Each structure stands twice: as C-alpha cells, then as structure tokens.
C-alpha cells in the first residue's frame, strides 16, 4: 500500500457568495426565464426551438437523397427497363422481382412484364440505380419510404413505380 501514489487535487474553495446559493439560484433562474420568454416569441425565427412539426412542416431532403424507387419512361410512355436483371442481381436485400417478356418492337429485345419491389426489404443502398445500364430505375423521387399497415401494401408493382417516373434525358438504343 505504500507504493500507491495519491494525487491530491486542489478543490477550489467556494466563496461565501457562492455558498449562500441565492445569487447562483437567481443566475440559474435568469437563464431558464430567458429561454422561456425567448421561446414564447410570436415570431418563429426568433425562437430557439429546434423541433420541426413533422407532417405540417416536412423535412426538405437534399437533392441526392435516396428515397422511394421509380421506373423511368421512354419517349412514348412505355417502361424504359429492358429486363436485364442487373438490379435484381446486385440487390443485396434481394427485394426486386422481375419477369421478362418479349417486346413486340424488334428494336427492343425485352421488357419487364412483372416488376415488383418489396419496399420493406429494401435497405435503400442505391446499388440498383448504380447497376442499371439504361437509367430505368431511380431513387430520386424525393419522398422517403412510407410506413405500411399491411404487408402487401409494401409490394410496389410496375405500374405504381411507373406512375412516379418521368422521361429520362439519357439516350436509349442509340446507333450501333
């Protein structure tokens, strides 16, 4: 026990002013009262509350936010996807189900007759968007994946995904 090094720390002695507590209590009260009245300010900008009233004041997501999927369209309104299965192959959560079918147009080889994304399984990694060779699937819809009451509500089929989609600027099926 003789080898134990005891380090003595100097305590700052409290002055009588601090020991009486009353001035310090008044100081504390001044802080809380200041906050109280500042947050009663009718102008919202001058308040210091950080809370966002969520559904009424939704969060504005950044431009590159990965949200709900959408399927892009061709110029004639058909689905842009060529059912190459890149996205469903790379998907780590295995949430994309595609059934390919032959297209009537000979310049377009395949199209997805069934394209279902299970949004509950999706881990929002964005790899499907990276993998897509023809800019058909995107996650830039600007809305997050909503909560679901029923399991099957989370299955987004092709038409639903297309209804959120738009025309792509990218050139598809260019000259060889």
């Amino acid at each position, binding site marked *: 026990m003789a080898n134990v090094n005891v380090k003595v720390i100097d305590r700052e002695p409290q002055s009588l002013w601090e020991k009486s507590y*009353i001035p310090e*209590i008044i100081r*504390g*009260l001044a*802080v*809380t*009262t200041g*906050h*109280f009245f500042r*947050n*009663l300010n009718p102008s919202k900008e001058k308040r*210091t*509350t*950080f*809370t966002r*009233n969520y559904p009424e004041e939704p969060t504005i997501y950044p431009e590159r936010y990965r949200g709900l999927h959408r399927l892009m369209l061709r110029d004639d309104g058909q689905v842009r996807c060529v059912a190459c299965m890149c996205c469903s192959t790379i998907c780590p959560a295995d949430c994309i189900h595609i059934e390919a079918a032959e297209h009537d147009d000979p310049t377009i080889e395949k199209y997805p007759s069934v394209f279902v994304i299970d949004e509950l399984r999706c881990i929002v990694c964005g790899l499907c968007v990276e993998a897509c060779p023809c800019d058909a699937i995107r996650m830039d819809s600007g809305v997050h994946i909503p909560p679901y009451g029923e399991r099957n509500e989370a299955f987004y089929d092709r038409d639903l995904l297309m209804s959120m989609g738009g025309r792509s600027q990218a050139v598809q099926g260019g000259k060889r």
Partner: protein
Amino acid sequence: MMVEVLISLVKIFVIVLGFVMAVAGLLTLLGDRKQSSKIQNRVGPNRAKILGIGVLGIPHFLADGLKLVLKENIVPAGANRFLHTLAPVLVLAPALIGWAVIPFMDHYCTGTMQTTAEYTEICVGGEWKNYFSIMHLNAGLLFAFAIAAISVYGAAIAGWASNSKYSLLGGLRSSAQMISYEVSMGLSLAGILLIYGTLDLNEMARMQGYLLWDWLPMWGVVVQPLAFFLFFLAGMAETKRAPFDLPEGESEIVAGYLTEYSTMKFAGMQLAEYAATVFIAALIAVIFLGGWQIPYVYADGIRIFDNHWVPFGEQAWYWISIFLRVHAMIFKILVLVWLQFMMRWTLPRFRYDQVMTLGWKILLPLSIANLFVTALIVTLL
C-alpha cells in the same frame, strides 16, 4: 339563512371548482409540460386535436383526463384495500379545504368606503358582507396551516397501504420532509404575526395597504424579506415537488408513495400536489405580497403622495376597484405558481440528507434568528 347557504355554495363552487381545480388541473396536465418545454427549447404537447383544432395542446389535457378515468383500477395483492382507496381522498381533500380561508378580495361594504390617514379602509354607514372568501375565520392562518399539515397523512397512509417497499419509503420520506419544513414554515411566519398582530388572513391583507412615507407599500415582503424567502422555500419543499421531490424520487424509489397507484387515484394525488402548489402560492400572496392589494389603488380612489383622486365617480370606482383587486389576487397567485415551476425546472433535485440539512441546519436557525430580531425590533419600537 337560505340565502347565506346559497351564497356559500356559490363561493365554494366558483373558488374551488372554477379556480383551484381549473388552475391545478390545467397546470398538472398541460402548463407544467408546456412551460418545461419552452425552457428546454422544445415545443411540448401539441398533437392532440379535437375536430382538427388543437389550440396550445389543450386537448391533451382532456385526453389525459379521459385516459386516466378509463384505465384499470389496480389494487396490488396484499395491499390494504380500504386504506389504499382512502389515501388519495386524504391527500386531495386538504389541498382543497384550505381554500376556505383564502380571501380573494376584502369584504363587500354595503355603505361607502373611506380610507383613513393610516391607509385603513373602513366601511361607513353599512356593514361588511363576506362575498369574496368562502369562510371568514379570525384564526384563518392557523386553519390553513393545520389543513396543509394534514395532507401528509394521506401520503403516509398511501405509502403504508400499498404493500410495497418503495411506497413505504416514499411515505416515510414525505412525513420526514413535512416535519422538517413545517417547523421552519411556522417559525418564519411568527415574525410577521408579531408585526400584524392577527391570524385573520383578510385582516393581514388589509393591513398591507399601508403606504410607508406615502409611497412604499408596506407589503409583507418589504417588512420581512428573509421570512418571505424562508416561507417560499419551505412552502416549495412542502408541496413535494422538485427540487424537493424526495417522496417520489424516480431514481431511487420508483415513484414513492405513488408507485402502486393507477387511474384517477393517481390523478387525484397528482392533482393534489398541484393544488398544494397553488395553495402555497395563495398563502404567500396573501401574507407577503399584499393579497388583493394593488399599490395606490384604494376602494375610494387612487392615493399617492397625499394626492387623492376618484376616477369615474365613487360608486363606479368601488366596483372597478373590486374588479381590479380580485384580478390582482389571481395574477399574484399565477405569478407565484409560475415562479415555483421555474424553480422546479431550474434547480437539480437535492439528495435526501441535503434536504434534511437544509431544513434543520439552515432554514430553522435562520427562521428563529428572524423571529428574535423581529421581536426585538417590535419591542423597541
């Protein structure tokens, strides 16, 4: 006779149900939460809506009440069912009975009011009618103290009857705290009793209308600033709210004597705590802050520096002064309640031994010293 009974009933209804329960209830379920949210840079409860209207979160207050009414009433196994049910009543009733002696305004004068040179209001050519306090008792302060002290029985019984170690500890702590603070509370008022020479709360408020050097209102806080401070502190400790919330210290004994309570029994106890806060605020207002007095405003006009004028004619002014004074009393109560809540959200809670040290080693000697000095001054003058 019938008329007097009717008037008493109306007074009880308006004061206890209309004011105390409304203020205490709103404070319990809403005011405290809203106030704390503002202090902590939050917005507080604002989601509950009735028909799409959610003004300041007031529907939360109704929703909470409804929820508490509809919850299952649980009496734990091994608890004394009778006492377990009785305890919330014993806690809530004293918090409301005490209001019997709180004067919201001077007695109504059927004649004409006159203010003497000593700033005492007298009723000439008529008699006093007690319309603004439920009961006129010339030992009002004694009554208020006796009733306030009784409420601890409810807490102690609740702790014992619940058959839980946490409840028992909470009940014991609540009794210990009550004993420690009741002493300094009473002694801090002994000095002011020497000065006023009366136990009648309305008489006390009336005496505080005196203007020293014709401009300084001789309120209790001016005469006895130390006693005001001690009484405020001891009163806060007696309402068992943070920073003195040892009987229900969450971190140590779950919720103290409230642990085994649910439904309206719980709500009643919680409500009683807030009603006690409002009651202490009313006592402080009457004893130290002039009660219904407004400086320079008297029943027969405005007086300052020997000037005297009567706006709007004498009878009209009397009615206006009554209106102003009742609202002044309510305003003082609300400000004091607000201040107590501010303290609650400002100060960290005390450890059990610190509360006992504060009560017995600091407040008690200070209040005795205050009594001695006051007695000396009163004797010499």
